[in-house]
């Protein structure tokens, strides 16, 4: 299913890019002054594109925004980063509404909660401000597109990484998740399905609840290592439990005997990969999320994407509703590239 989805989204994307280029050329004919063929891909320096996030201080968004900014530079427009500092729905909605009030050229938004943003997104779209969501979606809001990690696919990649780590002999593995988070659950489901269907050298014996806390995750893995002494690998669906898992493996004197596949690329995880306590981690395509969000917004604002006649008037969405921005496998070999400056 997932592959089919991906193929469709990629094909659609290519179609739109081609369409964008063609419209770009036809638009060019209408432009009077410049004779540079790249003109239609250059915006006004007063155009403002916003990225709005929640927990806006965390490192994770830095990757997204640097992609957003880099793409923005290509068009010569202004990019601005803002959001709610806390993990608070109200705060982020307020931040978004303030941004909308400034009538920007476009907004890339990550949604702390899918439903809370339906109304403000609709209002912005009605006012002619294009909005795409990235990382965390609000599917029923009418946003043009969502660019994010296909979490089920990320889980499949984790299974692949763990399978490669353990070699053909494989063995028993466990997963540590945080069941209250849907994305964590999707990762585990992808992991489980991939093991059942493809990576038959692995056997998923149990799934534990790390509660998003390193001490809890360490407790859980310690228990699991007792219950299943032959465990050879662990998949942690988020970075905090990866750190906890590393401590548990060390405390059980099983360093090197139990391979850990973690998630994301905060410095603790990267250091642990470098020192070998964590074997690999799954990095999300945060840069791509920001980069392609900017591209989409610019194309929408300048009406460069016109796959169908009068799509705007007829209420047809010219963009793919979902773009999987992919994942990378971080290992000792390539870990250095993932440190942010």
């Amino acid at each position, binding site marked *: 299913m997932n592959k089919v989805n991906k193929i469709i989204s990629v094909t659609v994307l290519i179609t739109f890019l081609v369409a964008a280029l063609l419209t770009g050329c036809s638009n060019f004919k209408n432009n009077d002054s410049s004779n540079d063929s790249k003109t239609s891909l250059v915006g006004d320096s007063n155009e403002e594109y916003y990225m709005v996030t929640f*927990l806006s*201080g*965390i*490192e*994770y968004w830095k990757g997204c925004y640097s992609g957003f900014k880099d793409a923005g530079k290509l068009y010569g427009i202004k990019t601005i980063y803002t959001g709610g*500092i806390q993990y608070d729905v109200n705060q982020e909605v307020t931040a978004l509404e303030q941004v909308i009030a400034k009538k920007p050229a476009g907004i890339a938004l990550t949604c702390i909660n899918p439903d809370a943003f339906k109304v403000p997104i609709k209002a912005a779209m009605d006012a002619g401000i294009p909005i795409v969501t990235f990382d965390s979606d609000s599917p029923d809001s009418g946003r043009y597109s969502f660019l994010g990690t296909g979490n089920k696919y990320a889980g499949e990649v984790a299974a692949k990484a763990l399978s490669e780590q353990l070699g053909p002999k494989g063995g028993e593995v466990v997963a540590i*998740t*945080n*069941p209250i988070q849907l994305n964590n659950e999707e990762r585990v489901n992808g992991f489980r399905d991939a093991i059942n269907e493809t990576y038959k050298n692995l056997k998923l014996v*149990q*799934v*534990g*609840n*790390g*509660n*998003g*806390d*390193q*001490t*809890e995750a*360490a*407790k*859980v893995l*310690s*228990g*699991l*290592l*007792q*219950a299943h*002494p032959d465990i050879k690998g662990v998949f942690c669906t988020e*970075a*905090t439990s990866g*750190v*906890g898992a*590393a*401590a*548990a493996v*060390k*405390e*059980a004197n099983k360093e090197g005997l139990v391979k850990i596949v973690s998630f994301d690329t*905060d*410095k*603790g995880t*990267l*250091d*642990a990969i*470098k*020192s070998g306590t964590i074997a690999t981690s799954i990095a999300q395509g945060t840069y791509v999320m920001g980069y392609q969000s900017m591209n989409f917004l610019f194309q929408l604002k300048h009406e460069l994407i016109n796959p169908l006649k009068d799509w705007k008037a007829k209420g047809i969405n010219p963009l793919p509703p979902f773009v999987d921005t992919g994942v990378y496998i971080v290992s000792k070999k390539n870990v250095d590239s993932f440190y942010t400056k």
Partner: protein
Amino acid sequence: MRCLEEKTMSSDKPQNKTFNWRTLNTIWEKITSFREATVVLIIIVIGFILSLCSPHFLTMDNLMSVTIGLSAEGIVVVGMTIALVSGGFDFSVGSVMALSGVIAGELYLLNVNIWLACGIALLVGMLFGLLNGFFIGRVGLNPFITTLAVMGIARGWSYVITQGSPISILGVSKSFTFIGQGKIIGLPFIVIVFLAIAIISDYMMRKSEPLRKVFYTGSNEKTAILSGIDTTTVKIGVYLFVATLASVAGILSMARFTVATPATGLGADVSMKSISAAVIGGVSLSGGEGTILGAVLGVILLNLINNGLILLNIPVYWQDLMNGVILICAVTLDHVSHKNRQKNLKGKKFKGV
């Protein structure tokens, strides 16, 4: 376990004099009259069931891993018990834990010696204790809202310092990681610290004057003031102590994981957990009653249940539910038996030191 036996004996001495004409009955009375008896009994029963259900439960490795896991939490529980006995509680423990780790880690990254960094972090933690104590003891604010606000400040500050991402202190000196990962004669250092803190505090709670004052303050503040106890100082002292212990737990956790996370104690909610551990162990939510031993037994019980759910392969979705059911049973059992015991001991009410 050794500490448990000691406590059994010491807490029963007063009753010994009145009951020494009985024989077998005496021993039974002795065991049941000891406040923490029910929790011990529940622990034994659960331990017995678990060892029947899973061959992996009653192994040195498993029990040791459980003990390591509960140590940081246990240190916080000791502080929380004293806060509860004083008639308050402290929601800021988890955030002070996180902040101490974060400050020590950040200073270390700024090339400050790690021990000095920990000293500073400890002082900052204590400062937050003073802040709690000042507003609760001196200004007279409610502990609920005060510690909630201080929690926000401490958590917020750790987010500001780290910009939300965990601090990695990999490569820190071995002497520092020793306090979180090392062992002395087979016993993890972190466990030794926890036991030392628990045993000393338990003893002090029973014998030392300053901590007895906490009981008086908690059971009836007006009477305490009338009998010349400076309850303001007592409260400031209590919250200072709680925050110090939370700081110690935060620094030990950082040494254990070589990572300081601003979200430490958030997902698992350390303050809520330590309050429930204390209450399971017989500490009263309305103050004036409870022992460290009981609270430590409470935290052991909570962690054994947790361990059991993992060993028995209970799906994650069921674990919270099972936890809740077992907890309410344990607390009810303890409450009922405590009531009966009080009925039996009518007229022999505890008179203080």
